C-alpha cells in the first residue's frame, strides 16, 4: 500500500486520504512555505475530523474556530476552564490545582486546570480571530508554549511550567514569567493551541538564530533557546526575542490580543 506523509506532523496515511487523521491538515493541497522558510500552519477545513486515542476532534468554523471533541470512554482532556464553549451535560468535569499554585497566581496564570472525561462531547474556543494549531506529540517530546495560548491537551500529556530565566527575559520577553511545558512519556498525545491571526512555523538548524517580536512568539521545541536581546537603534530600547535552534518555533501574526483591548 502506498502512503502519503503529512508535512505538518509527519504522520503516514494511506494514499488518497484527503486530510491527515492525526492533525487534520489537508493532504491534497500544497503546503504554503515562504521564501525564507516559514511554513503556514495548515488551514483546517470546516468540519475536518482527526483522531487521538479512541476519541475524535472536529474543527468547526474558520475565523474563530471551535474544537469539538467526542470523548471516548477512558479518554480525557485538560484545559483552562474559560475556553469551554459547550458540553453534553453528562460529561464530568473536575478541576485540579496545578503545581506551583502561588507562583502561578503571581504570574497571572490559572491556578486550576479543568479536566473533562468521556464519554460525551465537549467543545472549546478562545476569544480572538485566529487559527487552531494541532500538534500531535510523539512519545518523549517536550514543547514550550506561551501563557494562555493552549486550548487543550490530552490526558497522556504531562503539564508543567518553566520559569523564564533572566529578569530581562521576563520583563521584556513578552511571554510573562513562565512558559507552559507539555511533555509526553511513552505514549502519544495531542496538544491544540490557539494562535491569534495566522500562525507560522519554522524549523531552525543547530545554532541558527532569528529575532522575533516577543508578543509574536507562540511555541517552541524545548531544544530551542529563547532570550531577550536589546537592539541598538540609537534611541529607546528595542527588545526582541532571540530564538536559537535546533528545533521548531511557531509565531502568531496578531501578537497583540485585540479582543481584550476593547
Amino acid at each position, binding site marked *: 500500500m502506498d502512503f502519503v506523509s503529512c508535512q505538518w506532523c509527519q504522520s503516514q496515511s494511506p494514499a488518497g486520504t484527503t486530510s491527515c487523521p492525526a492533525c487534520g491538515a489537508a493532504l491534497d493541497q500544497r503546503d*504554503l*512555505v*515562504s*521564501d*525564507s522558510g*516559514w511554513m*503556514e500552519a495548515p*488551514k483546517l477545513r470546516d468540519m475536518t475530523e482527526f483522531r487521538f486515542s479512541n476519541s475524535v476532534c472536529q474543527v468547526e468554523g474558520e*475565523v474563530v474556530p471551535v474544537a469539538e471533541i467526542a470523548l471516548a470512554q477512558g479518554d480525557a482532556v485538560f484545559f483552562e476552564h474559560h475556553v469551554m464553549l459547550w458540553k453534553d451535560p453528562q460529561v464530568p468535569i473536575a478541576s485540579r490545582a496545578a503545581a506551583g499554585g502561588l507562583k502561578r497566581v503571581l504570574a497571572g496564570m490559572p491556578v486550576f486546570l479543568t479536566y473533562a472525561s468521556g464519554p460525551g462531547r465537549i467543545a472549546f474556543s478562545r476569544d480572538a*480571530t*485566529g*487559527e487552531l494549531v494541532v500538534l500531535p506529540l510523539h512519545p518523549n517530546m517536550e514543547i514550550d508554549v506561551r501563557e494562555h495560548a493552549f486550548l487543550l491537551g490530552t490526558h497522556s500529556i504531562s503539564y508543567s511550567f518553566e520559569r523564564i530565566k533572566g529578569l530581562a527575559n521576563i520583563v521584556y520577553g513578552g511571554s510573562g514569567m513562565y512558559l507552559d511545558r507539555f511533555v509526553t512519556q511513552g505514549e502519544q498525545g495531542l496538544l491544540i493551541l490557539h494562535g*491569534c*491571526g*495566522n500562525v*507560522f512555523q519554522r524549523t531552525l538548524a543547530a545554532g541558527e*538564530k*532569528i*529575532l*522575533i*517580536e516577543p508578543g*509574536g512568539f507562540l511555541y517552541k521545541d524545548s531544544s530551542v533557546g529563547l532570550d531577550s536581546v536589546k*537592539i541598538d*537603534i*540609537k*534611541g529607546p530600547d*528595542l527588545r*526582541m526575542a*532571540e530564538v536559537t535552534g535546533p528545533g521548531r518555533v511557531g*509565531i502568531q*501574526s*496578531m*501578537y*497583540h490580543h*485585540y479582543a481584550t483591548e476593547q
Partner: protein
Amino acid sequence: MTGDASAYVCPYCRASSDPTGASCVSCGAAFDVRRVVSAAGWVKQPPIKDMARLKAGQSRVQISGSYVPVTEVDLAASESIYFAHNTILHLDPSVTLTRMAMPGRWSRAIAGLPVFLMTATGPGHVALSFDHPGETVAVPLQHGQVMNVSEHRLLAATGNVGFQIFESGVTIDTRYGGVRTRSYPIGRYIDQFAASDGPGLLLLHAPGNVLVRDLQPGETIVVQPKSMVYMDPTLQPSLHIEHPNGGGGFNNSTVVWLKLVGPGRVAISSIYAPEIVLGLIKDASACTVQTW
C-alpha cells in the same frame, strides 16, 4: 499570452506587469480573479493571495496569511524600508535597524501617532504585521506620484519614498455639558508619501475589506470619515453634516460624512469607527449641511 510587461496594465494599480505570472508584481492583485465592481462603481480590491510576491527595487516582498497577513520583505543589500516599530514580527540578525527622524514629534505624540519610525536596511528578511484582522494593500507609486494616507494605516514604505505629515484641517467643535471639544473626523494629521526619487512602494494595512473608486471631475461622494485608507491629493477633504430629524437643539442623531469631489482615487475600508457627535455643533471646518 506573452511575457511582454507592456502588454498588461494592472486594473488596480495601473502599473505594467508581466501577465505570465500569477499576480501583479507591483501590487499583488491576482490575474485569475474576476474584477468585482459594484453598481455604484466601487471596485473591490482583491485580497493579495497567500504567498504572492511583489518587487520593490531589487528587494522582494511576499505576503502570507489571510486573517492578519504578514508582509515579509527580502531586503537587498543597502535597500531599506521604514515602518512603525510596533509592526515588526520577525527579522534576520543581518538586518540593520535604525531610528528614523520624524517631523512634528510633539504634535504626533499629542495625536497618539508613533513618535518615531524605524528603518530596516538589508541584506536580510524583515516581516511586519498589524494587530487586527484586515488586508494588506500595496500601492505602487510611480516616479513623482504623491499619495495621502490616513493615520495608523502605514505598514511600510520603501526607503526612497518621501514622507511628511500635514494637518488635515477637518474639524468639528462641539459643546456638551458646558465643555467645548474639538474632534478630528479623519484624524488630526494626514500622512503624505511622495515618490520623488523614482518609483516606490507603499504598503498599508486596512481593517476589513478594501474598496476603491475613481471619481470623475466634479463627481461627489460622501463616505464615513474613518473608513478612508488613502486618496489622491487631488481630492480635497471637507465635511458634509446631515441632521435627520430637522436639526436644531440637542440632537445626537447627526451624521458626519467626509465629502470628496473628483477627480481622483479614494480607497475605503469596510471596518471603521463611526463619527459620533455628542452635544451641539458650534463650529466646523469647510462643510455643507443638509437638514432632513
